[in-house]
């Protein structure tokens, strides 16, 4: 269960933090250019952090057994469809369809 006090601390800090990230340049920095190395790393944050968050959820799910095969299959289908079509909805559809189909077949 999520602790309420902690939840509010996270909501408010994330809100302030997100605003500061958005305001950083347009508000504070003005037209000064950013160092190359920093931009080069920032470019890859989303593609590094999001997969790192998902991978353990896919590989080490607590459910065990057949659901694991369904989850891994659904993950592969989602990524494959997303890379092939570059379309968010195609990827979600492929992932969800594979998850349900495999759960029914194996389960």
């Amino acid at each position, binding site marked *: 269960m999520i602790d309420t006090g902690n939840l509010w601390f996270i909501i408010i800090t994330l809100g302030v933090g997100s605003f500061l990230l958005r305001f950083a340049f347009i508000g504070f920095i003005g037209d000064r250019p950013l160092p190359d190395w920093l931009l080069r790393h920032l470019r*890859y944050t989303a593609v590094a952090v999001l997969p790192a968050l998902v991978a353990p959820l896919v590989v080490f799910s607590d459910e065990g057994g057949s659901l694991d095969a369904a989850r891994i299959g659904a993950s592969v289908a989602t990524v494959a469809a997303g890379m092939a079509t570059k379309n968010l909805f195609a990827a979600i559809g492929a992932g969800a369809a594979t998850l349900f189909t495999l759960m029914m077949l194996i389960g």
Partner: protein
Amino acid sequence: MPATTTKSAFRAGVRDGAPFMVVAAPFALLFGVLATEAGLNLFEVMSFSLVVIAGAAQFTALQLMQNETPTIIVLVSALAVNLRVAMYSAALTPYLGKAPLWQRACAAYMLVDQSYALSHARFDAEPQMSVPARMSYFFGTCTLLIPTWYAASFAGAALGTALPPQIPLDFALPIMFLSMVAPMMRTLPHIVAAGVAVVISIAAASIPYSLGLLVAGIAGMMAGAQVDLWLERRAP
């Protein structure tokens, strides 16, 4: 395209932003549902969506909070996922930097993937646009988008626990994240960054306090940046 007035720029922004309601709504809806399932009440869900307005960061925080992750890791991870908005801010500064501070502050609050992508493309294509016209266009793109985000979060929270338990909702989150990331795999550095991050996050899964996530994220970023640099040096 004739010289754009602020009014016509605003209308153009609204028109261009409208289709993206279809993209934003499912994310906010799912956030509302998952957050309610995790035990957040309607007021907490709405505050989250109003204060943060960042799908990936909200989902990341929600996932980690449920795993009893230390607060500092929740915050660092969620903000790291949202670092790209700082890049958007940097990219729009040459176009909007001369607008009044209060307008820039409002624009910063509404700086999301869609408003950035539309505005940057438009400003780049129409260099003669005045700063007020650019601001009007930017706010136009947000006019339908941001209320959609709030409304769909509300709908999701209201729907929340009414969904049948057979639906494997816990796995909606991984599918959502993978769907967001897969279309970003445009170049070799992107693929290497993701690959390195995945391998390290699995290898480091036993590190306590979800620190493995940060290690894997940083390693993935560095790998992507190095391959990027290598490709650039190799190019003639």
